[in-house]
């Protein structure tokens, strides 16, 4: 019988939400385990098989010197390495520190700052090692995760389009709140993947999936500025889970006083 490929799931600085999406697959999880041997996934099983591994899913960002080394080891023992979620692909919410002095935070937050060893920036995995595929989202969409694993198993390209959330929104026939109601929506500059979840609940897109292909954030914010939005509001719109993704970082920085 053909050997089933092995899967390892790794965690760096993150909330676990993305790996949980894999456990969340419930019904499909069984089908996954028929095609993949779960070799190292501590969240799911204490049994750990030795590497190397065929497929590694990496969650979380690099925030410590120790992790900066660990990711190189993981890359060496992984044939294919896929990063999942905003932390792993853009530095995550913890990358808000990148815009300030982290030492100051540490001294305010921790009673014994000397115990804290941390890098000054939270960075995505691809800043450290070669990544075969990046799956965006905060958290990732479980159907997209299954699609990526499925494409890997069947040797095809995953169907993960990089166009705007608006494309998903319009296919679903959702009334565009940006035009018909007014509150800002980041859909036109955000990577598709959630199937326009927030717009379907009358909320503007928060940008969970990070910048889309060729994002033109500056045009959108100039338009909103004309209708009265202030720089600090615009800055905050782009400073969340994907604050350190290039296009969003540059946009928020352009609204700094």
């Amino acid at each position, binding site marked *: 019988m053909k050997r089933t490929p092995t899967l390892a799931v790794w965690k760096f600085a993150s909330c676990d939400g993305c790996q949980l999406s894999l456990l969340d697959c419930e019904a*499909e999880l069984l*089908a*996954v385990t*028929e*095609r993949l041997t779960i070799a190292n996934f501590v969240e799911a099983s204490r049994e750990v098989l030795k590497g190397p591994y065929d497929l590694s899913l990496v969650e979380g960002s690099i925030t410590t010197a120790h992790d900066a080394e660990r990711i190189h080891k993981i890359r060496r023992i992984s044939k294919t390495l896929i990063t999942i979620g905003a932390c792993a692909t853009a530095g995550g919410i913890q990358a808000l520190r990148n815009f300030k002095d982290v030492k100051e935070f540490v001294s305010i937050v921790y009673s014994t700052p000397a115990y804290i060893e941390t890098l000054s920036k939270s960075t995505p995995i691809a800043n450290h090692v070669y990544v075969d595929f990046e799956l965006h989202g905060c958290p990732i969409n479980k159907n997209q995760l*299954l*699609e990526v*694993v*499925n*494409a890997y*198993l*069947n040797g*095809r390209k995953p*169907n993960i*389009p*990089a*166009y*705007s959330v*608006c*494309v998903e929104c*319009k*296919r*679903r*026939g*959702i*009334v*565009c*709140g*940006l*035009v*018909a*109601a007014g509150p800002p*929506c980041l*859909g*036109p*500059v955000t990577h598709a993947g959630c199937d326009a979840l927030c717009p379907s609940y*009358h909320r503007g897109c928060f940008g969970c999936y990070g910048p889309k*292909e*060729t*994002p*033109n954030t500056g*045009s*959108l914010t100039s*338009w909103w500025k004309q209708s009265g939005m202030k720089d600090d509001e615009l800055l905050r719109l782009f400073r969340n889970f994907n604050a350190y993704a290039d296009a969003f970082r540059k946009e928020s920085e352009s609204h700094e006083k």
Partner: protein
Amino acid sequence: MFTVDRTNVDQLFRLLQQKGYTLIGPTVRDGALILDAISSASDLPVGWTDDQGPAHYRLRRRDDASLFGYSVGAHSWKRYLFPPAVKLVDARRQGRSMDCTSPSPDSASQGTPLKKYAFIGVKPCELNAILIQDKVFLGSGTVDPFYKAARERLFIVAANCTQASGTCFCASMDAGPRAQRGFDLAITEVAGKQHYFVIDAGSKKGTEILLELPHRKSSQQELDEAARRVQKATDQMGRQLDTAGVRDLLLKNPEHPRWEEVSQRCLNCANCTLVCPTCFCSSVEDTTDLAGKTAERWRRWDSCFTLDFSYIHGGCIRSSGKSRFRQWMTHKLASWNDQFGSSGCVGCGRCITWCPVGIDITEEVRAIRGTKRQEQLMHS
């Protein structure tokens, strides 16, 4: 021309339902008019109208109880004839070979059986858009079986416009505000102290339905009043587009600096093409099950504003925003003529209203016309 009173509109709907039609019409949802299944006149946007401008749409109350006193809403009818997602192929692995079947149009649209639709209140610009999509899907050599099946069983009740919005320019495109052809019934609403509809039948199906309805021959006064109301819509057009020579203007100016300028504003978000009633582009996506035993091929709405749209082996042809915007506008207003013998724009104004940054196709034409490269045009 015949006159039918407002009190008999539900009778019209019942007649259509008895003949097996599912009624689709405008209705209010989430602060806008959308299209959905309706069952009686009270499901229509009774007494509502709309204010539209670049990146702006708001509903507003009218001071009458019109059923059709608004311009085009958020959805175009194409979602029923050319649905956002359609399954094209089912494949199953059989040992060393593969069995492929194409789902019939009756089960292709995300598993919902294809219904016999009656479109209620199709605006003239949108009716023209349907006639344009007929050329694309039925008359250009390759027939789309789903479109054909849905189209053949379709009943169209057109509603002439008595109110135009700030982004309408159908009059410039010779596509409204009065329906000329392609309908089964065309109505002009007169809502006031008396509330009636002047109705014209455009097909045998339409005449049959009309004859079953309580109706009378329209008086001259009723005809005049209906004509006056449609004229009001013409006068109200919020925008104009000078179509004279626009094909040559655009095709001869591919390097006009305006393309670069507008691409600085364009988000390439694709909204304009997805709301457009004539845009017909889709991409085809193959999916497999985890075990690799079955596969499916889906067709989904796509747009020339995405990078994948022009991806061929080795890269994307239209990687700059400028080239994508230029593709969109020159297709709509220029190369469409060469391809299908008419403009690809009916002046519905949706691309202006639903563009998140209010890019205005009529303004872009003016800008290019205003500073056109004379030396290039002289060679035409």
